[in-house]
């Protein structure tokens, strides 16, 4: 299938506000035909151009040292003039000649080129003096080609900036809604049992009792699922980095399905949460579309420039010839990544993640949280175990501060924060701690610790 068809098809699947700003591949291709015709009319068919450009390429390396004077025939340069504020490609042709044509200015281009080519052909056989004649041949169609390309790229870049701004706005609104609907129920409560909070905040700063339902746990699970699905980027050690579009698309679908199969969408209690979830999914599809769009454009750009080279034999703008690329407006190729990152730094942190508040020893919530003199944080149970074993070194930095830790090391601010944001985990952990401590006491009363019977 022709790329123009593939490209059109790719764009059809994208929302119009994106596809309307895509690279105009077909128009560029038509212009390219005009470029070929113009060059042919000048007598500069691809073969001729190839031949002329080849003779430039030769005096590189060692030969260069001898100086250009030793060359014979014509030399050709494909250059981009940007003095005029837009890109104007032109050919610069040098010809050795003993008798330059009388009226270089007045003669038509075709005649001049024909004359130059004639001289070039003759020069293959004869040694001539180095009386160079320089011809500048503006390329009208080629200018139109690059101007259209530059214009579309500029429009594309502008559109992506606008898109980005819009995304940021939507994300901000969504973040507000989510943080509102996931506010801890028990934030003013002294008890961390989630249900008792319904009464205790009657006189608090909360708006009204009816709005005190919270979707904190549903949102946390949704976001955790989202992070685990690693839709756009892998954080695995073996395949770290951006995922392909197909992979990202599959994963996004998977995520949406998992949210449904786990009933997370139905568990959302607040009306605004449902809308927010839809909006969240839409934002992700949007990122995916931007990714598709960007890839399609990059491919179109690559293809059209390749075609340009192939059809005209004019050197392609590549790493050794970056002039035209530098003149073209740059598009933000990292936009999808930026969007993913913004989502990760704006929306997701609204819900504190358990992983950030885990004890590094038992890997469950660090409750009650003890801050050692060195600043590292662990749960009280793990530190008690360390103290019983007589281990004094902080597990993180080996500073000797475990044995001196006592009640004064409880991080009360963090303790309250955990009760607010992780009421269930905190209460479970507290019960576990108590049970474990009791078990240990039993063991110390005479049972062999390795053989102890654990009633679960």
């Amino acid at each position, binding site marked *: 299938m022709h790329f123009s068809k593939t490209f059109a098809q790719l764009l059809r699947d994208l929302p119009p506000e994106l596809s309307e700003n895509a690279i105009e591949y077909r128009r560029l291709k038509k212009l390219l035909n005009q470029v070929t015709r113009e060059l042919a009319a000048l007598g500069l068919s691809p073969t001729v151009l190839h031949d002329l450009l080849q003779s430039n390429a030769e005096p590189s390396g060692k030969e260069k040292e001898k100086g250009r004077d030793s060359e014979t025939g014509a030399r050709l340069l494909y250059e981009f003039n940007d003095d005029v504020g837009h890109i104007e490609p032109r050919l610069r042709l040098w010809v050795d000649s003993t008798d330059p044509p009388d009226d270089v200015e007045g003669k038509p281009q075709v005649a001049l080129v024909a004359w130059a080519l004639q001289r070039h052909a003759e020069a293959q056989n004869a040694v001539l003096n180095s009386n160079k004649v320089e011809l500048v041949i503006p390329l009208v169609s080629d200018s139109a080609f690059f101007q259209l390309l530059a214009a579309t790229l500029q429009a594309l870049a502008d559109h992506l900036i606008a898109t980005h701004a819009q995304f940021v706005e939507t994300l901000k609104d969504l973040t507000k809604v989510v943080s509102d609907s996931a506010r801890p129920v028990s934030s003013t409560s002294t008890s961390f049992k989630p249900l008792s909070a319904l009464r205790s905040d009657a006189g608090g700063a909360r708006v009204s009792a009816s709005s005190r339902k919270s979707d904190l746990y549903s949102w946390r699970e949704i976001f955790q699922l989202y992070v685990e699905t690693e839709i756009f980027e892998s954080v*695995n*050690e*073996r395949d770290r980095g951006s995922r392909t579009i197909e992979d990202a698309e599959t994963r996004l679908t998977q995520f949406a399905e998992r949210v449904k199969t786990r009933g997370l969408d139905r568990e959302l209690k607040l009306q605004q949460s449902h809308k927010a979830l839809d909006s969240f999914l839409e934002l992700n599809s949007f990122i995916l579309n931007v990714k598709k769009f960007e890839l399609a454009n990059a491919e179109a750009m690559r293809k059209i420039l390749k075609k340009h080279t192939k059809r005209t034999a004019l050197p392609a703008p590549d790493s050794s010839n970056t002039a035209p690329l530098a003149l073209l407006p740059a598009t933000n190729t990292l936009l999808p990544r930026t969007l993913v990152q913004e989502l990760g730094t704006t929306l997701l942190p609204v819900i504190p993640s358990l992983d950030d508040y885990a004890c*590094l*020893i*038992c*890997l*469950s919530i660090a409750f009650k949280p003890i801050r050692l003199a060195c600043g590292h944080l662990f749960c009280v149970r*793990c530190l008690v*175990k*360390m103290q019983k*074993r007589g*281990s004094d*070194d902080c*597990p*993180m930095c*080996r500073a000797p501060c475990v044995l001196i830790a006592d009640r004064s090391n409880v991080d009360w601010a963090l303790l309250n924060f955990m009760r607010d944001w992780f009421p269930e985990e905190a209460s479970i952990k507290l019960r576990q701690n108590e049970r474990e401590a009791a078990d240990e006491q039993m063991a110390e009363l005479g049972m062999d610790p*390795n053989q102890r019977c*654990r009633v*679960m």
Partner: protein
Amino acid sequence: MSLPKRIIKETERLVADPAPGITAAPHDDNLRYFDVTIQGPDGSPFQQGIFKLELFLPEEYPMAPPKVRFLTKIYHPNIDKLGRICLDILKDKWSPALQIRTVLLSVQALLSAPNPDDPLAPDVAKHYKEDEQGAQRVSREWTQQYAS
């Protein structure tokens, strides 16, 4: 008897996101016992070798270090005939914040950086100190013979 949450979490991650060159899988009938393989690090005499190890998490883990032993024969100054490893974090420098993953990465690093000044296999260490190239050649031969 239930497995501590920490061991479950560690195992899940070891399987889902293994460290490059390292595998660790628990036995079905004993979830505290792991079959481990470590690839010899590139640039070391153990390059291209696949070394089998066993790893056991004692009841006190993570307060006490895991027990790790090479099952594949290896010519290394800090690993003896029985496969026992001389590595500080497996003994007095153990910290409960270390994990199976970090321990195995340390063992892999030990293959790249033998330390003949703190030997467990005195004859190998002597060989490494007196004729490093010759010792490395033996290490390579053993790797080819036993670890591939």
